[in-house]
């Protein structure tokens, strides 16, 4: 399996970020991980040329700018930048409405319940490979 260049974690909870980071490192499928507790900062990072991020793991409930607001701003970003990028939404509850709402947003390719498992990460890598073929 080919390694992913860079994964972006956006979650206001430090523990979640820490856990996800360990899981990603242990999977040995990722080159680099960038972590943001504030969606606003993550957006600024992306705007500044994209840094070759391949996956964004995005939390929904966050202070200041939540996951939905982040997506709204993200949709307006340069199309070229988003071409090879996959957004995965993370939620702490099995909320059907959130699920339906996410399915209506183009850039959201997957919806995962927290906490994520090693299997989830394997699934994400295959997802990226499939997306790459499309491009």
């Amino acid at each position, binding site marked *: 399996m080919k390694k992913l260049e860079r994964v972006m974690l956006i979650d206001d909870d430090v523990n979640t970020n820490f856990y996800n980071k*360990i899981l990603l490192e242990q999977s040995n499928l990722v080159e680099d991980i960038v972590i943001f507790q504030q969606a606003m900062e993550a957006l600024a990072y992306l705007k500044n040329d994209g840094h070759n991020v391949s996956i964004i793991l995005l939390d929904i*409930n966050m202070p200041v700018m939540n996951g939905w607001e982040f997506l709204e701003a993200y949709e307006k970003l340069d199309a070229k930048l988003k071409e090879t990028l996959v957004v995965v939404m993370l939620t*702490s*509850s099995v*909320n059907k409405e959130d699920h339906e709402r996410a399915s209506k947003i183009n850039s959201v390719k997957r919806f995962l319940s927290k906490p994520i498992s090693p299997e989830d990460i394997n699934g994400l890598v295959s997802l990226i490979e499939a997306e790459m073929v499309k491009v």
Partner: protein
Amino acid sequence: MAQSIEINIDESIVQDQSLKTFFNRTGSKDYWYWDLNHPEHAFFSPELYASLGYTPEEVKSNKEIISNDQVQKAIKLLYQFLEKSISIYEIELDFLNSNNQKVIVCFSAVALRDNQGSVLRVLGSFKHRPDSKLNPINKNIHSLLSDIKESAFHILDGNLRYQYIFDNTLNVLNTDECVIGKHIVEVIPDNNEKLFFQKLETVLKEQKSLSLVTSLNGLLSKDYLVLMFPYHEGVCVVFMGLPFGLNEIYKKLFESEQRWKFALEGAKDGLWDWNLKTNEVFFSTQWKAMLGFEEDEIKGSLDEWSNRVHPEDLQSCYDDIQKHLDKEEEIYSNIHRVKCKDGSYIWVLDRGKVVEFDENGAAVRMVGTHTDLTERMETERILNNRNKELEQFSYITSHDLQEPLNSIISFTRLLDLEKDKMSAVGQKSIEIISSSAYRMKEFIVSLLEYSKIGKEKEKTKVDLIQVIADLKTDLYHLIEQKGAVVEYIGNAMEISVFKQDFIKLLQNLIVNGIKYSVQGKRPHIIITAEESDFSINLSVKDNGIGIAKDHFEKIFEVFQRLHTRDQYTGTGIGLSYCKKVVELHKGEIWLDSELGKGTTFNIKLSKT
């Protein structure tokens, strides 16, 4: 007058056969006549002029005995009558008598029409009015009573002396105009019917209308409906003969009206009775008391109410009344604020209904109630706030509580990867922490779902077969693990439900059926559905452990569990969830069960 209607006192016209018959029958000398085939021939019996003190010669000499205005008024009404835009020709005209005094004469008429409905002749009578002050009421009551054979009305002055009497058939009390000036007890002995005189006094003193059904202790030949109402300084008493057999009904109606008025007063509702023509309103004592007023502080007009309605609410009241008048709503109903004596506002539920219409179908009288809702509105407001707090609480439960829990689950997972390095106690600890955390998560999720029931605003159409197929996919792991069979027996059906809640309801019942299975027996779940005009009937049948009859009610209560956790896992929320969803659909849920054989949950959902 001579210019407008040619008056020919021509005996030849009186030879007309129909006219003769008409006047012979009425026995009246005071009549008039108009032949439309010969419009120039209008005839007034000589009595008209004689009673005014004129000789036929004086009339012929064009003496001004009536003004042109009055003649025009008479002709205008006559044309309306001929065109059928009014049903009764009745008019009062001012004449000048030979002493140059104003005299009022009332004319009424009937039309004789041919087969096509065209008028051939107009025949009428006239009558002098002794007192012009009585005119407005005479007209109304005359026309009202002309249809009722046995009717009469007596007008008494402030000392209860006769001022005027009208008896349609001269037989109600065997009295005539000779009683004028006499006191009522000279006509109706006061030892006769006490209630009649009591009411009469009340009408006079309190200036309100009263009624009773009485035969005046046999003075009258049968029961009469007697209406009394204040009239100028005195009282007008109307006697209406009740058709045979109807008097009992009237009596009952009258009593029942008294009864419901009493019942409403007892129920602390204020009562109003509104005359839409005059905007006079009767407000009950309780109505006034509700706003903090004494009986005599509120008069009887509509603005006593409308001036006190909160300005923001008044328009909606009128809109709702209009909807009722337009027959869009069977009952007028509105909740609004009304100002009390002390300046504070109370919330009232205002409900009413038109109870009387005029001959054109227009509403004349509306009766209704005011119910004080202030306490209820306040409770509702508190309840709404509580509900909001509860929603806030669910939100906190769902997110803030789940986050640390997710951390526990996450990090026990990481620890679990290194459990080989731990002692047996350490390994067991991780196992317990993990399973407890999962159980807690399950609990929080189902609590959250329970609190979310009813959040969906609208029902959606769902394909029942598809819903069941999707559920089987969602529950794939459980079904596989238990080797369960889940099948639907019934027709394809599209049903209108609160989708998410409904799916979860079915899911809960299916999962229960699989979960509470008999050891070593493959769970078999059968779902059936039927549709009637008003409801959807579903059943979910399992072959599980069954439920004892004693627990049929209890299991629907939240957090009620029948088993320990080692036997069967569960939160005690599932079936209360089902019950709440069913209630949301205005339905019912019940069960049939036999221990060791299985359980069938039956659901009836209302389609409305």
